[in-house]
């Protein structure tokens, strides 16, 4: 590259002092400066700073490489007072440098010039990139946090009804509540203990998980809520914590679907899953139990009676007693059974739930 900045003849010794001062300033400023003859594109001045940045790079070639500037035609097209801005990437001492350029058209004594001002904005760029990548990191962290929170919420909703979850989220605690109008379903599998010994335990648990997942879908479909599973036992409720006018019918329908689901599943399968179900309508208390390992659970006579009735079920049978009869008899087929002595409840008439009067089966 020719170096017009340094090859220039010295300023005449008798030049006014401000002219000399001006030239010194042009050379020593932190801003890179170039003055170009617009017609011939010959540089009349390239100051020391700009030369330093350019190094071995030719000024004209460097300017031609700037995207969007259209340097070749600039001399012909740029009018007085017009400006263009662009950015030049250079290697200064083998390090990438970002140079912000401002090109303006100027006329002096009938001649047109292009004045190029250059600023090294590498540090600014660096900071900009840094902030970009930091913002991205934060965004990613936030997304992960949100996902984590959603996951935690889903887990909590597995062990407590949404209404209780919202209550805890809003005020930190949930108070035990009595529900009079509700129905409970208790299910367990016939001979489960023997099955688990006989089979591969992990495969058995996988099957159990399958079944319970299916039950969850069934109870949800009928407006019931799964309360918990204990081993092979499954417990669901309707009317807790949200009131449900048809709680008895909801539970009865869920029970029928569960039996039907198992019957279908057992067809052509080597492992036969047979359940007993007890259903009952009666008062329960719903509450969160435990502080660290907590669970939403229900207690009370409504629950206990359902458990006793379940024990009186034969394989694939659904048992209830007279408390539920008035609630179900118009819509369901009930078969009267014997009277039985139920611990804590005295003598009760048992019934078998056979199906719906208008539905399938």
């Amino acid at each position: 590259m020719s170096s017009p900045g340094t090859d220039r003849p010295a300023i005449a010794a008798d030049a006014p002092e401000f002219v000399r001062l001006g030239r010194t300033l042009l050379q020593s400023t932190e801003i890179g400066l170039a003055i170009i003859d617009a017609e011939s594109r010959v540089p009349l001045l390239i100051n020391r700073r700009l030369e330093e940045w350019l190094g071995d790079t030719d000024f004209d070639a460097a300017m031609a490489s700037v995207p969007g500037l259209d340097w070749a035609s600039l001399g012909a097209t740029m009018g007085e007072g017009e400006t263009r801005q662009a950015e030049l990437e250079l290697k200064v001492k083998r390090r990438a440098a970002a140079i912000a350029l401002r090109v303006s058209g100027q006329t002096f004594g009938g001649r047109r010039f292009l004045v190029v001002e250059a600023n090294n904005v590498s540090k600014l760029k660096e900071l900009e990139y840094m902030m970009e990548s930091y913002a991205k990191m934060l965004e990613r962290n936030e997304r992960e946090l949100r996902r984590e929170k959603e996951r935690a919420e889903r887990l909590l909703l597995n062990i407590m009804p949404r209404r209780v979850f919202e209550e805890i989220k809003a005020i930190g605690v949930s108070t035990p509540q009595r529900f009079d109008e509700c129905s409970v379903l208790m299910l367990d599998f016939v001979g489960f203990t023997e099955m688990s010994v006989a089979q591969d335990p992990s495969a058995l648990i996988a099957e159990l998980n399958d079944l319970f997942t299916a039950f969850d879908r069934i109870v949800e479909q009928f407006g019931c809520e799964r309360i918990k599973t204990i081993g092979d036992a499954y417990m669901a409720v309707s009317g807790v914590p949200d009131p449900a006018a048809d709680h008895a019918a909801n539970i009865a329908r869920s029970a029928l679907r569960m039996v039907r689901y198992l019957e279908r599943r057992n067809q052509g399968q080597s492992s036969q899953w047979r359940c007993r179900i007890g259903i009952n309508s009666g008062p329960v208390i719903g509450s969160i139990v435990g502080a660290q390992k907590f669970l939403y659970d229900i207690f009370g006579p409504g629950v206990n009676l359902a458990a006793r009735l379940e024990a009186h079920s034969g394989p694939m049978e659904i048992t209830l007693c007279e408390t539920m009869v008035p609630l179900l008899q118009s819509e369901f087929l009930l078969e009267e059974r014997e009277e039985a002595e139920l611990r804590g409840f005295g003598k009760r008439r048992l019934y078998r739930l056979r199906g719906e009067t208008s539905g399938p089966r």
Partner: protein
Amino acid sequence: MAALFDELGGFAAVSRIVSDFYDRVLDSDILAPYFDDVDMRRLVDHQTKFIASMLGGPASYSNEALRQIHARLNIDRAAFDAMKEQLGASLLAHGVSPRDVTNVIADIEARAGYVITRN
């Protein structure tokens, strides 16, 4: 460790360390050649994440990620040590206590196996 990032004043303070470290790396005869063809944006991005995560801020590089990033850079022991030295100097110059610097460096040393790929 997790507190160091916040102790120093979060991103505002750490950005000065990143900037200083960036300068030191590019001024180093051993380290600069590794970044000759690396785009400035990528290098700054990498160093921001690297330093933020070394100081216990957001973004952490898994060992697998470290291995992948450095797999084709042909890094030897001398370069790795030079990098540790520059980072240590940078941290010290920005008010990180010698004890914390020692911890950070030890943490980096523990991952040498994922970065050095040449004898």
